[in-house]
């Protein structure tokens, strides 16, 4: 490789490259869109130890350990993953680090693949940690390396904040060689790393000293920069919003481009504000920069023009600031195309039975959240990773009379992430609740990551596969059974028995994800138009391959994988192999 090789990388790939070049030796993460590829790409470097942890809390704790032991360490997660990891994060802010520790958090403005759109900058403020925010792949690479330097200079874990558009947009980066960083020495230092009250009180003072030093640093750091254009309009922005503003306004404005979004630079902002006629803050989600500007007495406009909700666009900025006309709109008669469970998805059979039995379904986070969509419509709640079991428990305590008509559904990876403690609670506090673990042998939604139950590591090395059935029995569930989700009658019979039982039970619905390369696809099925009576029974499973024709149902052969669920629903026996036409 030459020193100046250029490559087109997604932001996440560029962060991974930054980890490599920074001499990072340890990566531990849990998958979550839009952060997943950082860790997948980091795993491709032999020099980096990289693993999937069962959840974000374990991942961050492991990275803390690696850092204290003297290795540059990293953990990456989506915004809601930081909620799970928040406990260690808030206290490692006190203890500080051994070698550089960087935590990437990817926000999902617009909720492309998330249950909320919280602004992770609030965590940086609350935990008193510096946060860098790149706006393209080149900065993803460079800021990752700078984050390690800052981490070691100020003895502090450093956040790297991404957004869906930065994480998943490719742009050109210039590659460099890996820095040779030897492990920092480890010496026992209980005053620094044992955060019992006596030590923590001492570290608390250090945190404020560090904050003061960081607030000075950000005023002069080259990570924050002013770009002069017309001084009639001044824009303060960071990350993806900065690129939208530049696209919209070009040289018709001057920019204070913030690379560090916590702490914010008071003197630099005041200087910029004094030299432009009209000042705007363009920030997606919360009004953090704007509020800070007002606090230091700078007159700005921000959320009076721009929404707290969702993503911005260059067109939106142009029309709000320059008053230009918005572009033409979408034709009115274009039906929406929401995501659906894939043809051959093993979850479809379960949700069909749940829908048919009219059960209350406490749902969870994964592909199977799509079981909430019509026509299956078989989900009553979805809150966060692992919540399904706790929510069901609460429902069943308050309404014991309906416990026999309610279930929780949770995926294999989600169960390991944070469902196990919920199951322990069912046993300990004795609700006769029925939990279905949808075991499709992979973490599917985020794009097929291994997990502790699959028997492979992130680097595709063999690992002991956690036995889900044994875990359920070990925590005290006596009724544990397996079903094939494609056997609709079998699923219904098992559910009836377990719902009638007067104690907690777990049904393991086992069949691998239809998109796994190891799963055999059957020949597409076809409808016998003579036998089809258009009763629409088959349409109840919500399969995208089944289409209502003029005279009969038909099956799209480019989509059908021959799973056979529709055959089980077809009373006239009109659906069969290709030869039945």
């Amino acid at each position, binding site marked *: 490789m030459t020193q100046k090789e250029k490559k087109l990388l997604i932001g996440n790939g560029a962060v991974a490259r930054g980890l490599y070049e920074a001499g990072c030796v340890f990566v531990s993460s849990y998958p979550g869109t839009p952060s997943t590829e950082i860790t997948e790409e980091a795993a491709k470097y032999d020099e980096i130890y990289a693993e999937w942890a069962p959840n974000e809390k374990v991942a961050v704790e492991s990275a803390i350990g690696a850092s204290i032991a003297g290795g540059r360490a990293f953990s990456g997660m989506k915004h809601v993953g930081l909620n799970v990891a928040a406990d260690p994060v808030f206290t490692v802010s006190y203890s500080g680090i051994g070698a550089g520790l960087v935590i990437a958090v990817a926000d999902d403005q617009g909720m492309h693949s998330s249950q909320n759109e919280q602004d992770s900058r609030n965590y940086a403020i609350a935990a008193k940690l510096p946060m860098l925010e790149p706006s393209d792949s080149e900065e993803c690479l460079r800021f990752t390396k700078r984050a390690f330097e800052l981490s070691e200079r100020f003895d502090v874990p450093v956040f790297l904040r991404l957004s869906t558009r930065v994480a998943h947009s490719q742009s050109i980066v210039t590659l460099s060689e890996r820095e040779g960083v030897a492990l920092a020495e480890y010496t026992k230092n209980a005053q620094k790393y044992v955060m019992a009250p006596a030590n923590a009180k001492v570290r608390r003072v250090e945190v404020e000293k560090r904050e003061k030093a960081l607030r000075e640093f950000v005023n002069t750091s080259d990570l924050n920069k002013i770009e002069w254009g017309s001084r009639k309009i001044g824009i303060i922005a960071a990350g993806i919003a900065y690129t939208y503003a530049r696209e919209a306004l070009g040289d018709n404005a001057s920019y204070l481009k913030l690379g560090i979004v916590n702490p914010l630079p008071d003197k630099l902002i005041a200087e910029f504000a004094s030299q432009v006629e009209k000042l705007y803050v363009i920030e997606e989600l919360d009004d953090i920069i704007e509020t800070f500007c007002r606090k230091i007495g700078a007159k700005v406009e921000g959320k009076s023009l721009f929404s707290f909700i969702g993503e911005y666009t260059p067109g939106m900025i142009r029309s709000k600031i320059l008053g230009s006309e918005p572009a*033409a709109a979408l034709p009115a008669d274009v039906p929406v195309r929401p995501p659906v469970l894939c043809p051959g998805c093993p979850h479809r059979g379960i949700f069909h039975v749940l829908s048919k039995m009219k059960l209350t379904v406490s749902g969870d986070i994964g592909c199977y959240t799509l079981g909430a969509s019509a026509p299956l419509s078989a989900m009553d709640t979805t809150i966060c990773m692992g919540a399904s079991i706790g929510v069901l428990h609460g429902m069943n305590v308050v309404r014991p009379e309906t416990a026999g008509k309610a279930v929780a559904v949770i995926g294999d990876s989600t169960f390991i992430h944070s469902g196990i403690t919920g199951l322990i609670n069912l046993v300990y506090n004795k609700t006769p609740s029925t939990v279905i673990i949808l075991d499709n042998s992979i973490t599917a939604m985020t794009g097929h990551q291994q997990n502790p139950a699959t028997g492979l590591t992130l680097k595709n090395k063999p690992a002991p596969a956690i036995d889900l059935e044994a875990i359920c029995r070990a925590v005290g569930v006596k009724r544990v059974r397996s079903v094939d989700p494609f056997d609709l009658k079998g699923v219904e019979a098992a559910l009836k028995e377990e719902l009638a039982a007067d104690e907690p039970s777990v049904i393991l619905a086992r069949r691998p994800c239809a998109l796994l390369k190891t799963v055999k696809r059957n020949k597409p099925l076809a409808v016998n138009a003579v036998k089809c009576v258009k009763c629409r029974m088959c349409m109840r499973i919500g399969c995208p391959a089944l289409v209502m024709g003029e005279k009969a149902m038909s099956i799209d052969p480019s989509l059908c994988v021959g799973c056979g669920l529709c055959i089980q629903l077809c009373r006239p026996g009109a659906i069969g192999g290709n030869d039945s036409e």
Partner: protein
Amino acid sequence: MNNVYNIMIVGVGGQGSLLASRILGSVYMSKGLDVKVSEVHGMSQRGGSVVTYVRAGDKVESPLVPAGEADLLISFEELEALRWVHYLKKGGTVAVNTQQIYPMPVITGAAKYPDGIIGRIMESGVKCIAIDAASIAAEAGNQKASNVALLGAASGITGVDQSVWEEAIRQTVPANFVDVNLKAFALGKAAADKI
């Protein structure tokens, strides 16, 4: 940013827009231009409407193509072409695969799949290249190469040499699928040339 060439690739999750966008990114990077490509991952990929943006020029700021500024819209499905055609600038081009995949609201009867989409697009004042990419790809040896067949159909209006496209395909596609994809590209280009 008038010198930026704006392409959108739209379709249904799972149709191969990620590969098509990577080929396009490689094409424009090899021409020494600044390039940004915005991909879609996660839940929206599961059979939902997906849109990928490819932008190339001296300097590209936003990875998103602003509405009304796309030069070329490549659509793997008819309804998706209609959904995004208003992103084209005047005189822009749609390259569309004449495949119809019904979205769930149409399947359940809650909505109707619009009639005469290709005609409507043609009437809207943009250039339209409509080909049956799936059949062309099948002829090339693998129906899954329909994304590359459609790229072939669209390639003519980009003004980029065929050899640049072919090199990008070689660099992007797994080795054992290169030949079938090169063939699909050539057949797609030939189909568009006949229109």
